[in-house]
């Protein structure tokens, strides 16, 4: 019997970084089911490719830093999957790959990798893709013609305007509410099925892999603004319905408000969520693109240290906010 030394504690609670990331990956994979059934294996290929690119980047940056085998956690898979979810299913396959490259190499590696990223890497990657290739980012396959898309090649399909685009141009989207709940509409790959996203959110909250208050405040702020300032001529409730279910709002409120970029206190997280929700609605009103969620998340990320120190000062934790 050869005994070794170790430092206490000799047990640990079940929630670890790996378990949190694992839950997230599971939830994101669940979101892939509906698009796969509808469009064939293309979404799976896209997701696999994105995750692979992220893994390769992770390995490369680790090797450049000479730290041996660098992959100790699976946040790269979360980044890859979230990026896939925000892409149109008919996007060229290089598009999510480019977004993943940007997310890993520009938004993650320079700041020291997982746990140190000031911005959500996936949000940064998607924002980059939006700015560089808006045409490819916002042309969605028409759900009226259900068909399996080619797995590898280019997709030459009928495109349709998404609900977010209708709202952006001040028109009422012509989509049944039931279709909106199941994601049977033109839009990014994984952001449509509100019911599945809701179930995933519940799973994450119950398993303590995400903070419910951030998401709830995000949705509350967005809903309040949607009711107060509707973009289309309709009753406040209808406006809330369309705003919350269109675009990537619901998805982003669950999967982009990750615990890393967020804050340590419940109050801080509430303010952070509300700020992100408010910014998102501002982007919808004044932004240049139909999908503004990722931009709103980036700005909220930049504000989060300010929120954190403001909450700290309010509680008397910091001698002074600035140090």
């Amino acid at each position: 019997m050869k005994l070794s030394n170790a430092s206490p504690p000799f047990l640990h609670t079940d929630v670890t970084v790996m378990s949190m990331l694992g839950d997230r990956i599971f939830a994101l994979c669940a979101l892939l089911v509906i698009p796969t059934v509808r469009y064939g294996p293309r979404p799976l290929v896209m997701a696999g490719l994105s995750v692979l690119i992220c893994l390769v980047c992770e390995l490369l940056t680790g090797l450049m830093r000479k730290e041996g085998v660098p992959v100790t956690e699976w946040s790269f898979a979360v980044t890859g999957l979230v990026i896939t979810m925000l892409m149109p299913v008919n996007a060229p396959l290089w598009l999510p790959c480019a977004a993943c490259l940007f997310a890993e190499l520009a938004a993650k590696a320079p700041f020291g990798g997982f746990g140190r990223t000031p911005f959500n890497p996936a949000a940064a990657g998607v924002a980059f893709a939006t700015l560089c290739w808006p045409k490819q980012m916002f042309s969605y396959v028409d759900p009226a013609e259900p068909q399996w898309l080619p797995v590898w090649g280019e997709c030459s399909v009928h495109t349709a305007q998404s609900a977010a685009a209708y709202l952006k141009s001040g028109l009422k989207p012509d989509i049944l509410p039931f279709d909106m709940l199941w994601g049977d509409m033109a839009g990014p790959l994984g952001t449509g099925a509100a019911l599945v996203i809701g179930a995933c959110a519940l799973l994450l909250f119950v398993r303590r892999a995400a903070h419910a208050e951030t998401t709830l405040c995000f949705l509350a702020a967005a809903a309040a603004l949607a009711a107060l300032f509707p973009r289309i001529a309709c009753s406040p409730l209808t406006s809330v319905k369309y705003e919350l279910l269109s675009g990537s709002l619901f998805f982003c409120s669950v999967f982009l408000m990750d615990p890393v970029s967020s804050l340590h206190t419940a109050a801080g997280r509430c303010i952070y969520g509300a700020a992100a929700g408010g910014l998102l609605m501002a982007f919808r009103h004044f932004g240049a693109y139909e999908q503004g969620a990722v931009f709103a998340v980036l700005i909220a990320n930049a504000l989060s240290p300010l929120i954190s120190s403001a909450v700290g000062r309010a509680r008397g934790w910091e001698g002074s906010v600035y140090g």
Partner: protein
Amino acid sequence: MPAFSQLILTALLAVTAENLLFAGGAGFSRALRAARKPSTAGLYALLVTLFSLVSALTGLALEPYLSLLGEEWILRPAVLTAAAGLEYLLAAGLLRVFAPSFLRDHGRILEQAAANTVVLAIPYVQQMFGFHALQALGYALGTGAAFWLAVLILSHAMKICTNPDAPRAFSGLPGVLVYVGILSMAFAGFTGGKVF
């Protein structure tokens, strides 16, 4: 909103472009510490507001003469820069006489505020020919507020970018540049890419 985001973006540019946080070399850490003190950041923003206001009004007053001379697109920046120099000279001279201790303590901020103002003021004076006095005031206040916010965000960014896990080549200035890059990407979502 787009106008405000433009202001913030401009202020971010000014903060990074001018040497507030990154005075370079020896002044680097000292300037950083100064920027992180709320009083200094506030004073800085106030001075920027005042200088912006004066610059905008000067530009407004000189506009008719410039258009008489012709080639105003060459003359205008030169005249504005010279005006900022004169303003600084005036302010510093007045302070020397009336409040020498203030100048001794905050002289560096005063001079940097003057230089930053040129960066902040020229775009607007250049663009908005039909500027009137009230707009100038609003613009100056907006600039000051945006500037203050940008200083706050950047002072935190600096701390984030010098964490022990960051690669050595990126820790500090290069990391902050990437940080500002991603942040301005977010603001580009408002404007669709263009600054002005």
